[in-house]
């Protein structure tokens, strides 16, 4: 259950894996992301839950991503996600454009062992129109009431960063409940954590309700400040200076390579 370091955690993510990652504010394992880039991971099918930012942009720029399934990739106040935008224009990544509730619904279907979940809205959008896995079906309880069916999304791996784990392998996630859904839905769940809690989190009436039981957790490793330069709710904020600097540098492929060299001590080989 416990891995000695981030590299050995990330070794469980094979190239080509369908990898689910949470949105920027929810606990992104940037430590594991750097390790994936360092290893030169390839052809990941990134499922953003439901959006991403720096994490997706770095992985795309470093050439780790084959397909990105998401509702939005953005650096928020710092601007557009530069490597993502370039990769889309060049056609170097596959795109599965989605909408937030459809990504949640797909994961919830997998969580429930269902082949699909119905979802309101979407009819007539190009999100439905540009993919073949969102058919319109009939509401069986009303006449002439079309509704979208969202196919289950079962990730090979869910990967995120959380504030706490205990020695049994239970993981506390606070109010980032999408992490619970991701862990329920995925075949494997890999977690970096800020701290190890000495007592069983499930036994605590306040931690317990927001704790993912070890049943769903494949492996954990400690990674202090593991979300940096993103923030971790309740622990630390994002490093805005760093994010602004990233956006400025990554505006060109050369600048992106320079960022990898300088900040990750990584010599990009297969990057853009």
């Amino acid at each position: 259950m416990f891995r000695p370091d981030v590299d050995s955690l990330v070794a469980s993510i094979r190239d080509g894996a369908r990898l689910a990652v949470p949105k920027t504010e929810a606990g992104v394992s940037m430590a594991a992301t750097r390790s994936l880039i360092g290893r030169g991971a390839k052809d990941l099918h990134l499922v953003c839950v439901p959006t991403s930012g720096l994490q997706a942009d770095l992985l795309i720029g470093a050439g780790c991503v084959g397909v990105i399934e998401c509702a939005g990739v953005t650096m928020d106040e710092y601007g557009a996600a530069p490597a993502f935008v370039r990769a889309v224009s060049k056609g170097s990544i596959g795109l599965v454009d989605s909408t937030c509730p459809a990504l949640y619904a797909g994961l919830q279907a997998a969580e429930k062992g269902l082949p699909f979940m119905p979802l309101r809205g979407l009819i007539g959008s190009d999100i439905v129109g540009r993919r073949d896995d969102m058919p319109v079906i009939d509401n069986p309880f009303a006449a002439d009431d079309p509704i979208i069916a969202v196919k289950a999304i079962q990730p090979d791996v869910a990967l995120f960063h959380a504030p706490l784990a205990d020695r049994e392998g239970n993981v506390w996630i606070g109010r980032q409940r999408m992490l619970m859904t991701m862990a329920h839905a995925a075949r494997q769940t890999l977690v970096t954590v800020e701290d190890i809690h000495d007592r069983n989190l499930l036994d605590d009436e306040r931690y317990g309700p927001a704790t993912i039981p070890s049943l769903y957790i494949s492996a954990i490793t400690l990674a202090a400040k593991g979300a940096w330069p993103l923030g971790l709710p309740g622990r630390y904020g994002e490093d805005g200076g760093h994010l602004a600097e990233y956006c400025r540098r990554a505006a060109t492929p050369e600048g992106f390579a320079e960022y990898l060299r300088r900040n990750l001590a990584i010599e990009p080989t297969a990057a853009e």
Partner: protein
Amino acid sequence: MDFSHEEHLIAILASLLKGVGHVAVGVASPIPGSASLLARALSEGSMRVSILGSRADQAWSDTGVEMFDCAAQGRIDAFFFGGGQIDGQANINLVGVGDYPHQRVRWAGSFGSAYLYFLVPRIILFRPEHTRRVMVPKVDFISAPGTSAPNVHRPGGPTALVTDLCLFSFDAGRRRFRLESIHPGHSVEEVRDNTGFDFDVAEPVTETPAPTPDALEAIRGPVAQSIAHTYPLFANRVFGIGEEVAP
């Protein structure tokens, strides 16, 4: 009383929230967020405001699917969307320009628009840039359609569009925008010249009113303080409060 362009936009959007019980605001929306806080301040506390990403102004215990479920339950009365492109039938495009998927201009993505645009009764479109680049005859990608066939479950949809130039209302039955008021210093002709789609014009078209002194006071006081928690760069630039974040 002097006011900035942003302050005016905040006041205009707030005026569109009259009678709303619960307004929710998505990510990357400092002006709609400020407008919602202003509307609440002017409503004497009867309005609920939920700002995604805010800790203080947050009605939910979960940062994920709860907002979408909440909208489907009919518990959210108003929401804002922008649009990289907006066309005359209120279709919005948050994805990009050119032939999908490898578009020459790519934006972040559709976020929750394809869903909330159907379910929230009062969707206010807010897109400051009023040019033919944005206000197009037909969007290149429909993130969310402005109207739906009668058999599609759709309790919600767009009701207004606010830009740097003017305020439109949207009539879902006619599938058309109507120019309601022009911001001071602009004209119907200017709006027409910069709009790539045809629209109706109210008779008469009025001038968009300036913010009231009460509104300005609230904007510069509690609203500015509050929005700075979620949008520090914005609050620093527009209200000069908080520390400047590194270049």
